[in-house]
């Protein structure tokens, strides 16, 4: 993590690696491979549990990110295509279920007037749809979508089975999100501490060299950083290196 410039002269190279600035939980759901795997697993289990010989059920999971729906996981390509189709329309049973935060069953798409998407889904061989939102306690928004080729493709038993899945999955997912968020915060904190050590040290050096106040020293450092378009931390590292030749300043704390 603490990789500084090899020589103080080559300031305009090597940007510090920085993890994406946005960390809303929605982003975590989409960006973390673990979570995508988890949701895929959920879709596969729901699909295989509800499918009967000759009547497959396709399952997909859609997550809202920046208020825009994205299909993140699915039991098969068809489910993904159907999710994406609906997201393209911008509305449909699954997005409605997300909005009202309640499961929504459309047992027969024929003559369904509420969503223009219904006709397109029907053309793709879907006859009934069950959408169950995953309750993530406001942390993120996700919905499990199930598509059947039969009208009345979901029995009362099926619905309670899926609701059971969804609530268990939600509980696990909340935990995963929480852990991911905490470990990310922890990583940010360690790199902040590492960076601050280098910067404080450089500030002290500039104060001693120029007999100036801390604010003035910061001003000198930020000016050098912005005129050379080099990160503050890298300028600070080069200040230290130019005085003592030390290229690696470590900060230790309990891991």
């Amino acid at each position, binding site marked *: 993590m603490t990789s500084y410039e090899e020589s103080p002269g080559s300031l305009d190279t090597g940007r510090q*690696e*920085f993890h994406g600035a*946005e*960390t809303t939980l929605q982003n975590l759901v989409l960006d973390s491979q673990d979570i995508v795997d988890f949701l895929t697993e959920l879709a596969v289990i729901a699909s295989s549990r509800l499918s009967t010989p000759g009547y497959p059920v396709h399952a997909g999971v859609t997550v809202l990110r920046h208020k825009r729906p994205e299909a993140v996981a699915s039991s098969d390509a068809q489910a993904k295509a159907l999710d994406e189709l609906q997201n393209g329309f911008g509305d449909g049973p699954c997005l409605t279920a997300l909005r009202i935060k309640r499961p929504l069953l459309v047992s027969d798409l024929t003559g369904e007037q509420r969503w223009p998407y219904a006709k397109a889904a029907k053309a793709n061989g879907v006859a009934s749809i069950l959408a169950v939102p995953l309750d993530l306690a406001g942390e993120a928004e996700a919905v499990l979508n199930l598509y059947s080729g039969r009208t009345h493709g979901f029995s009362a038993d099926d619905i309670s089975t899926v609701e059971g899945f969804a609530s268990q999955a939600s509980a696990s997912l909340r935990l995963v999100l929480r852990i991911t968020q905490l470990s990310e915060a922890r990583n*940010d*904190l360690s790199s902040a501490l590492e*960076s601050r050590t280098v910067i404080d040290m450089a500030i002290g050096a500039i104060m001693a060299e120029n007999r100036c106040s801390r604010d003035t020293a910061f001003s000198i450092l930020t000016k050098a950083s*912005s005129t050379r378009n080099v*990160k*503050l931390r890298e300028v600070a590292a080069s200040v230290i290196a130019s005085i003592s030749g030390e290229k690696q300043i470590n900060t230790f704390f309990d891991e």
Partner: protein
Amino acid sequence: MFPYEAGGSGQPDGSAHHSKGAAQRFREAQLPLEKLWMYYYGIGGDIDEMSLDAFLHDALDIPAAQVELISAAMTEMAEGDAP
């Protein structure tokens, strides 16, 4: 809007531009507050997260040097986004 003279670092180049933009840039960047604070703290920032929040909502005046650091943090974070 810019009473940062006292306790600040005078008026370094471009600081008027920085202070004018900070709150607005923050809103546009859709950056989580704690993420910005952590980065700003990491480059030597002095004010706490709640004061940062207040500053970004135009509810608190802070020294010019801190405004500069917040601005630097946002710039560096935005650059970090690019591959």
